């Protein structure tokens, strides 16, 4: 997996929709992006063009000039982008800044360790045997 430099940019609703369009294999020409996501939102082609430019400036898009138009494509995959953002989130959890607004199923800032997990698994198996014996 490609390692992205951090921090990754935070994206607004329209920027996310544009990235989603491109990640889903949509055409990267501004007019095509406008047809796909701009018209339904009632926004102009100019807004889409400036959004694409902004994403390009944020290093999330690359572009090729074909004739007079820029054709945009994602520089990173959705998986790479999410992986980098999750890395940042774990970093925020480690410094204690995020834990107040994020609750994780198991703690990402403290590990139980393989020996401890093996012992706990044995305890669960033992408890299941006990319950099965009692049910007989």
């Amino acid at each position, binding site marked *: 997996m490609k390692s992205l430099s951090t921090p990754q940019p935070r994206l607004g609703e329209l920027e996310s929709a544009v990235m989603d369009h491109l990640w889903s294999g949509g055409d990267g020409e501004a007019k095509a992006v406008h047809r796909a996501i701009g018209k339904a939102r009632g926004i102009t082609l100019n807004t889409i063009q400036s959004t694409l430019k902004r994403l390009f400036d944020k290093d999330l898009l690359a572009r090729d000039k074909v004739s007079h138009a820029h054709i945009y494509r994602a520089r990173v995959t959705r998986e790479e982008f*999410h992986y980098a953002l*999750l890395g940042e989130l774990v970093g925020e959890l*480690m410094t204690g800044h995020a834990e107040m*607004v994020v609750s994780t*199923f198991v703690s990402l800032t403290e590990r139980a360790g393989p020996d401890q997990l093996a012992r706990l698994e044995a305890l*669960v198996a033992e*408890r299941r045997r006990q319950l099965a014996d009692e049910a007989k």
Partner: protein
Amino acid sequence: MKLTFESAQIFILAWVLFLALGSIASGVFYRFGRARVGRLEPRVRHRALVLFAAAPVAIACVLLLAVTIPALIAFIEPGLDHCLTHDDVHAHLCFQHLPPHGLHLGVMLGLVAFFAYGGLRATTAALGARRALGLIRTLIRTSGGHISGGMTVLATPAPICVTTGLWRPQVVISRGLLDHLDPAELQVLLAHERAHVRRRDPLVATLVRAFAFTHFAPVRAWLIRELDIAAEQACDAEAAHITGDRCAVAAAIISVERLSDGAPHGYIAPYALGFGDSAVERRVHALLSEPTVFESTRLMAIMSTIALAATLLFADELHHLTETVLSLMAH
């Protein structure tokens, strides 16, 4: 009613003094009462810890209200004015008589430093929380609308599952975790996270961390850790109730912990310090033992009511005592 800058200073100093008393009381409770809290059933323990977090501020506000009562009575019925018995240099907790002068410069600077430190801590925490929420929002927005079982699914192989959001919490799970869980484990995970959503645990955790500032450092560390574990155990209990299998919940916790072991994304999460220390260990042990019998917090409620009644009953004496202490401190 005259509430000048000078008299406001006296009231603020009294509140800070009472806050310090509340912090000392919480330290005493931590020393002698935390074992009792640990025996409470998770949901009750969580509630008790939330109340405990707010205790210093609540104590400060109740005491300030109590010492203000004589001043309010004197304001309504001037014949009951108590200030006439004082000498002129006495600190007046009063709306009628102005204090002869403001606080000593050193005390003023102390108060300013106290509130500046509190403000700085609150701002740092709020900015951190804002960064984290911004991260989560971007993750959700770029998920491509992939939703499964009411959860937003992230396109990443890293195994992660979080509940986040203060007002409208939602569950976010990664494809990496979904692909590795069997249906029974997924049912547990869903039930657990939905319990967090229903209980609004992120909002409660934020409020408790805001109040935790008023406790001494060891009490604060204990309070936050115990609150987080109590919330997890309460959600484990709900998941066990829904699935009808406490062992399945314990097994799911171990599975997800094992999957998460390699997922700190470049950050090395430390191992728990020793036997029985880790949250996972405590949660699994709690699930494998018989469900804790509900232990009433009625005794705590009765004691709090008696303390409140006594405080209001002796409001006059407390008022004079506070004025004497403030006179010694402030001038």
